[in-house]
């Protein structure tokens, strides 16, 4: 602050930062090349109910973090929650990832910005209060050409009230977008089969529609070759997708689990038994 001319600029940056601050109370913690904050879907926590929170990551252009299965390199973010008695956090609910990379190394993750959803359950006996502190220790690997491991303490204060939950309008758009990006359960009348054909798994989908594209993201590591092109063959009743086996797959597997994406915000979770027989 030696130069008095700096002051107004500093002040306007400060105002700008306030304007850009996340919708809900918590302030953003910094991570390498970005920020993360907790966003609440509801205005308060209600005893006996489940509520959703988001870990809202904003990264500098071109930087990414990883999906649950990070692909050929990388590591997914992990959070260790420190919650008051009576509150418990669920697992992270992961949006369908993107393929990152262009050659022999392909990773799965999220570029630029993503919100990871976490459910929290409040026991019916939890006491109402003005504010409880929800805190988490986050470990995250942020990469572009290089990778930088980061740690952050994320926290927010929220009231516990006996009144039924009410959504917070300031975060509703973020939650709507985050839910859209989650893979859905596949409709019951869709059929999937996976046949084991030497170097590949062939996934056959029988749907109620035609698709022009399908990408499979394996949930488990070391089953499918991440960087191999996935051969997509559409037909009137669905499609076939040929997935090259991973070199690391030395023992036969019985099921193939993962996310099948048709287009942005249209992805499904599948868990299919693997058979030796060909289907027609």
């Amino acid at each position: 602050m030696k130069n008095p001319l700096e002051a107004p600029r500093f002040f306007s940056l400060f105002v700008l930062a306030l304007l850009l601050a996340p919708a809900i109370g918590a302030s953003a913690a910094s991570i390498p090349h970005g920020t993360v904050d907790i966003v609440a879907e509801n205005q308060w926590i209600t005893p006996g109910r489940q509520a959703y929170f988001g870990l809202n990551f904003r990264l500098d252009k071109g930087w990414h973090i990883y999906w649950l299965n990070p692909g050929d390199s990388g590591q997914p973010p992990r959070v260790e929650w420190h919650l008051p008695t009576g509150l418990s956090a669920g697992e992270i609910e992961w949006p369908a990832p993107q393929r990152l990379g262009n050659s022999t190394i392909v990773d799965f993750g999220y570029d630029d910005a993503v919100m990871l959803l976490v459910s929290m359950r409040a026991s019916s006996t939890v006491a109402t209060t003005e504010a409880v502190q929800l805190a988490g220790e986050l470990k995250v690997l942020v990469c572009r050409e290089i990778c930088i491991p980061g740690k952050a303490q994320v926290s927010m204060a929220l009231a516990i009230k006996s009144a039924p939950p009410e959504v917070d309008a300031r975060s509703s758009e973020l939650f709507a977008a985050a839910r859209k990006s989650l893979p859905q359960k596949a409709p019951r009348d869709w059929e999937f089969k996976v046949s084991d054909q030497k170097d590949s798994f062939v996934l056959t989908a029988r749907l109620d529609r035609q698709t022009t594209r399908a990408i499979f993201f394996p949930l488990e590591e070391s089953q499918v070759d991440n960087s191999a092109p996935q051969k997509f063959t559409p037909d009137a009743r669905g499609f076939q997708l040929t997935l090259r086996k991973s070199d690391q797959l030395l023992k036969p597997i019985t099921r193939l689990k993962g996310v099948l994406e048709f287009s942005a915000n249209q992805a499904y979770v599948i868990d299919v038994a693997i058979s030796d027989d060909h289907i027609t």
Partner: protein
Amino acid sequence: MKRFIFFSTLFALLVFAAPQFIFAAKVGQPAPDFTGTASNNQSYHLADYRGKFVVLEWHNNGCPYTRKHYNSGNMQKLQKQWTAQGVVWFTIISSAPGKQGYIDANGENSYMAKMRAAPTAALLDPAGAIGHSFDAKTTPEMIVINPQGVIIYDGAIDNRPTDDVKDIAGATNYVNLALGQALAGKPIETAATRPYGCSVKYKGSWF
């Protein structure tokens, strides 16, 4: 300029992307032969080491996962332990010039002196030829080759895919496991795992 970028990208794709699926090495198959120039200025030919076990360690001194194993002394300990038993250990640096981890011979020699690293040699592979022939994806990725020249292990250094030094104690070290079992004449229990770490910073790679 745009056209230049287009053609150089196309060139990079043709040269660096096309052959890789065909020649990638696999566990159970003969290791692709190579001759590499080391930071000590000597040339090393893989086929000369038939009759010995050979460990390949992909390396990038700026990668947090590599640093986990060097700052803790874990990698150096493995190098000393196994080379003392006649195993040949090559540290391989496939980072391209301008990419993270690229280092010249002098730089690597002083790094090794500082870290007290003790491989048989550190091979400089700035064109990525050795890396691509083994389809090495991460640093550290570890490959073990038996005295017959066959790959018997390819993958992670251990079962804790983090950059945290605290995770080394108590981890299952797959290199120790593979070499230990192979030297005892037993089958290798875990012959392939997903290598963890930073992507190898090849020429033409994105990240």
